[in-house]
């Protein structure tokens, strides 16, 4: 799970793994690891989710945490335009550090879509770059399952 600070990485993991959501914000320190079995085609695989502490830049992103990753979910907060920039930086950083690996962009907080700062045009641009984009809401659960299963499929395709 990569992305800026407070975009909802931990909430997405909680919603996905334990099907719960809480409004309370708890910042992740370092990394938290969860596991979720997921069916891809005929095979069942285990997703080991490293929920990594978010930051507004990539300066503090530890390459050791992403080394060995099979893929990642790049999380953006739809209500904060700046998180999109962070996502770009993060993507570039990962590319540089460990090469091109599958990822899915999750634009979170879909339940607050009226307040979104990220415009449909910007989203179109992302799709145009060949990125897989998924609207998600950890609060309502919308798109969460799809985001993770798409990522799992992409990893397995590779």
């Amino acid at each position, binding site marked *: 799970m990569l992305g800026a600070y407070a975009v909802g990485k931990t909430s997405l993991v909680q919603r996905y793994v334990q099907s719960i959501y809480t409004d309370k914000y708890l910042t992740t320190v*370092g*990394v938290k*690891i*969860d*596991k979720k079995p997921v069916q891809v085609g005929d095979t069942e*695989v*285990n997703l*080991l989710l*490293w929920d990594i502490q978010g930051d507004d830049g990539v300066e503090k992103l*530890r390459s*050791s*945490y992403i*080394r*060995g*990753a*099979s893929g990642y979910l790049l999380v953006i907060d739809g209500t904060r335009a700046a998180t999109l920039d962070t996502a770009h930086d993060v993507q570039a950083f990962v590319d540089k550090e460990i090469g091109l690996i599958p990822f899915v962009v999750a634009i979170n907080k879909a339940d607050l879509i009226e307040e979104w700062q990220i415009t449909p045009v910007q989203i179109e641009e992302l799709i145009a770059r060949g990125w897989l984009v998924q609207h998600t809401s950890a609060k309502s659960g919308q798109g969460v399952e799809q985001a993770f299963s798409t990522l799992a499929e992409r990893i397995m395709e590779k």
Partner: protein
Amino acid sequence: MSDRTASGATAETAPEKPTSTTKETAGKPAATNGAPVLSAGAFDELRSLLVGPEQQTLTDLQQRVSELPSAVADVLPQAVKHSARENSNLSDAMLPLTEENIENSVKRNPRILADALFPIIGPATRKAIAEALGQMVQSLNQTLEHSISVQGLKWRIEAARTGKSFAEVVMLHTLLYRVEQVFLIHRETGLLLQHVAAPGVITQDADMVSGMMTAIQDFVQDSFQGREENQAGTLNTLKVGELTVWIEPGPKAVLAAVIRGNAPEDLRLVFHQTLEKIHTDLSRELKKFEGDTAHFESVRPELETCLQVQYDAAKDAAKPKKRIKPLHVIGAVLLLAVLVFGFLWIREYRRWSNYVTRLQTEPGLVLISAERGWTKYYVRGLRDPLAAEPQKFVVDAGLDPDKVVAAWEPYHALSAEFVLRRAQHALQPPDTVHLSYQDGVLDAAGIASKEWIAESRILARALPGVTTYHDENVVETGRQQFALIRQTLEKMVVRFQDNSTQFVSGQESEINKLVAGIQQLHDLGPKVTREFRIQIIGHTDTTGTENVNLQLSRDRAEVIRALLEAKLGSAANLEVLAAGTSAPLRTELSDQDREFNRSVTIKVFVTY
């Protein structure tokens, strides 16, 4: 190395040359033998005609041979790289040579290799020494820690008993540990390759634990070591409560062992060897790992062995001591039973002896025999009927009355106490009589009825142990009363006026008392077999003449007699005595004394 390869290459190409030259030289002698001798120029020409092309080839070959070392040198590094990538043939082939070379090098000049190894040997030695010291400190700490406690004392005793050193005993007790889980983690991805747990150990999701451990490892490395991986300082111990996690890093995989208790440092060696073996056996799988752990199923026995060996070695030695065997339980029960029965037996014995002692010392009881049977006690003896009830002692001693079979024959005890008791019992003296006994003499003293006195005289003679009976000090009840009235009467004084037979005022009541007293004596007398007469004595003071006084005293007595006779009748048996001044009641020192002496008194004479 390159020398040998180069020479090898020359050896391969070399055979071509001799074969071609043999052909030539084989033809040459034939020609020389058959033809006439040619000039040198012609011979050269002929030779160039005959073997010109071969000569050229030969020259080319010679040139190629001379060029070969540089050509091989060009391809050799690539060839070696290629070979190492494809298989281990080259490495296998070169291994003996390398070993030999090293050996030769050391023989020739050890300094070269020593210099080369110096940067490695330094840290390696330091590490080995540090680890050895670490172990020593660990055991020293344990020794110190346990040397003062109660347990330490116990272990000291054990050390003295078994002849082992104290440190050894401490180690034996403290190094109880169990390797509960072993994780084999892929270093690059942090994914779990294989996981084994000791039986009965509750485990968390191993995949997540593995991930977490990798994250911690990464975190520590990033935080404290910087990014240079060559420094290779890795986290190798985690402590979580009673659990210790030992992490053994390898180039491709990490082995993490969860240990409960204190494991000895040499256990690391076991982990290290296991990890090495896994690296050797599965180097390809480790290198190409992409998330499929199926290949690593085969390392399970490896990991399990590591788990079990450690688990058994420490635990087996400790277990038998802790386990309670049925034999111990039976032994303890038997011991308890013996103790309880012993206690009960001793208590019963003490009660019995107390009872027997009591019987022996109790007056009025003569114990003839006292025996203990299997379940009952038998007591036989003599008992004075007045002695204490022996059955009471059974209860007092705490014995079961049903268990004591007693046979008591009655007898008369002749001790002073019992003779007296028997006398009390037989004579039933009234409360006013006191009995005492000494040396066969029974003494009675006090006031009793005439009948009791008479009866006791007869009974006392029949009492066992009584040879003499004294009752002189027992006064008949009636006579006692008689004596009292007599005393009262004799103390009474009827007083008269000076030189007159007229009473002093207020004497009437005295006279009435006198009458009543005499009347009582008359009533009582016959009952107590007392006969008596009453003398009325007249007195005067010393004034006046003797004759006059004598007459006056007679007159005064006569007055009283007349009065008494008037009340009591002539049978009163009264006589008169004129004492005059001869028997004054008081010595006359004052007028009061004189007044007192003008009086009449009474005396009672008991005649029988």
